[in-house]
């Protein structure tokens, strides 16, 4: 009977996370420098839905539709994507200390963005370069693993390869900073790396949607299998899983999520590590519940942090800094509160 009870608990947590996320979505519409009333929002939505003439000013309309809504969506999608990717990698590598940038996606994306900024490409190319280099980074790590391991100790070597690739790309980022023009390019690269959603537009979100869907759908469909993968390659194989194929699918999906997130928002740390832990405390380690919980809680978390980032001070704080400042003590708190093993 307790089992049924626990599962209901997990479903309850997921349901409430969803409600909280919805509430946060609406609250976030009102948060910001420009004051917006409930009436404004009602009018804008009403006119958009029924294609009638809008009663509020163009200014208000564009603040809601072109600034706040894209930003809110970006925060939810990126928070959810990083958390789901983190949860996946943790299961895959049988290690709760793993975060989504373990295989070099973030460092690669950072270098891609740095190159695009260095050669003065238009803004959209910064994102495209970041995305491509993020994928490239993980691709190189995977290739190194294939060459070195020949099927033996693949997981360990993959993590080592990811560390090698991350270090390499981090050095290349530093190099590009070093040779960048200190008055124009260097600050641009530095700000990009700090992460933030202030420049997000509607088209960015639409661009993010495609790789995001390609990543999140397989993860959600196959999520139950990660449970068995967390018991290790051989056991999962003996239970009937094609571990090589599944691992490749999971890595590609999680990498798509990470690289597309980093491409839009810059480097945002901690979410992919902390949120899966928090979710595991709330719903348990079964990925059937852990994956949706991680996604919803991750989305809410980044949305809250982003709201803080744009309202806390007159100057906007880079998101990457704030997630770390909030994430680090929060993680310590989770470690103190944990009851059983590595939750």
């Amino acid at each position, binding site marked *: 009977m307790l089992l049924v009870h626990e599962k209901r608990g997990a479903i309850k947590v997921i349901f409430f996370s969803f409600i909280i996320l919805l509430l946060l979505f609406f609250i976030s519409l009102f948060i910001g420098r420009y004051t917006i009333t409930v009436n404004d929002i009602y009018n804008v939505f009403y006119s958009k839905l029924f294609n009638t003439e809008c009663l509020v000013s163009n200014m208000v309309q564009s603040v809601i539709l072109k600034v706040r809504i894209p930003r809110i969506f970006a925060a939810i999608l990126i928070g959810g994507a990083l958390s789901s990717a983190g949860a996946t990698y943790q299961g895959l590598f049988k290690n709760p200390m793993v975060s989504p940038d373990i295989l070099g996606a973030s460092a690669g994306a950072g270098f891609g963005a740095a190159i695009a900024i260095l050669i003065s490409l238009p803004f959209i190319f910064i994102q495209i370069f970041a995305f491509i280099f993020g994928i490239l980074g993980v691709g190189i790590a995977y290739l190194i693993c294939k060459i070195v391991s020949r099927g033996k100790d693949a997981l360990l070597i993959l993590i080592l390869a990811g560390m090698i690739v991350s270090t390499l790309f981090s050095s290349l980022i530093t190099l590009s900073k070093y040779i960048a023009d200190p008055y124009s390019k260097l600050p641009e690269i530095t700000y990009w790396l700090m992460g933030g959603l202030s420049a997000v537009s509607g088209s960015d979100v639409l661009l993010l949607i495609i790789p995001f869907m390609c990543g999140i759908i397989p993860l959600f469909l196959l999520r139950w299998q990660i449970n068995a993968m967390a018991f290790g390659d051989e056991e999962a194989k003996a239970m*009937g899983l094609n571990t090589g194929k599944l691992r490749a699918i999971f890595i590609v999906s999680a990498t798509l999520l990470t690289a597309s997130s980093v491409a839009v928002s810059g480097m945002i740390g901690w979410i992919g590590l902390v949120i899966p832990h928090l979710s595991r405390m709330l719903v348990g380690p079964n990925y059937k519940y852990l994956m949706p919980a991680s996604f919803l809680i991750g989305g809410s978390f980044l949305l809250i942090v982003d709201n803080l980032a744009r309202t806390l001070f007159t100057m906007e704080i880079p998101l990457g800094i704030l997630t770390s400042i909030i994430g680090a003590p929060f993680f310590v708190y989770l470690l103190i509160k944990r009851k059983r093993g590595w939750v």
Partner: protein
Amino acid sequence: MNFEAKDVCAGYADVDIVRDVSFTLRSGEVLCLLGPNGVGKTTLFKSLLGFLPLHGGNISLDGKPLCFSDYKRQAALIGYVPQVHEPPFPFQVLDVVVMGSIVRMNYFSGPSHGEYSKAEEILEMLGVSYLSNKVYTEISGGERQMVLIARALMQEPKFLMMDEPTSNLDFGNQMRVLQQVQMLAEQGMGIIMTSHFPDHAFLCCNKAAVMCKDTSFKVGSVQDIVTEDVLHKAYGIRVKIAYVDTSEENSDMVRTCVPIMHKINLSRKEIV
């Protein structure tokens, strides 16, 4: 059913660790694999399960060669009980057991309610139904071993491979696990297990195999294989096999091996 390994050679990279291993095992038989540390028991085990590619020979079931690339079919025929370990996440015991139903699932679904009740039945059969709501990382080693056996049974395999099912268990739990091995064999399961204790072969096995450092592999009935000479050759210690009368039980005389302690120093010199 007939599990047959013929002239199996296996190892890592280009090195053969196991050479020319042949044996057959019928349903309902228990084979105990003995041998000193580092002799390649685990390697042989991994090749029998398809974790390592064979360097030579073949493995077949009822004359049909096993297809290791079809993971689900393979898992429906052969279950694997690994050594007790600790997974990184605190899964619920029932969730661990139900993972054995992957053989009957498609990749996109989780286990059904039916599979959960089946998992509970199996725990009940093993006498550990009280575990089902516990957390796998918080139970004892003996209990974990039972859970891993239950998970393998969920696959409804015809043969079971148990890698040192008694390692790290206390005396009582060792016997409890062996009792289950015996019970499963009586229900028609073919079982291959490795052990460090020749006594275990006497207690619940019909067949025994001994691997030695010179890659020789001997297999046969327990009486023929677990002898004083063979154990001496395999482990480098002198052993006496004794018969103990356990008349209060309805079983007959039980054999046991007793290592001869005071002669170890002398015999060690002989070996060196």
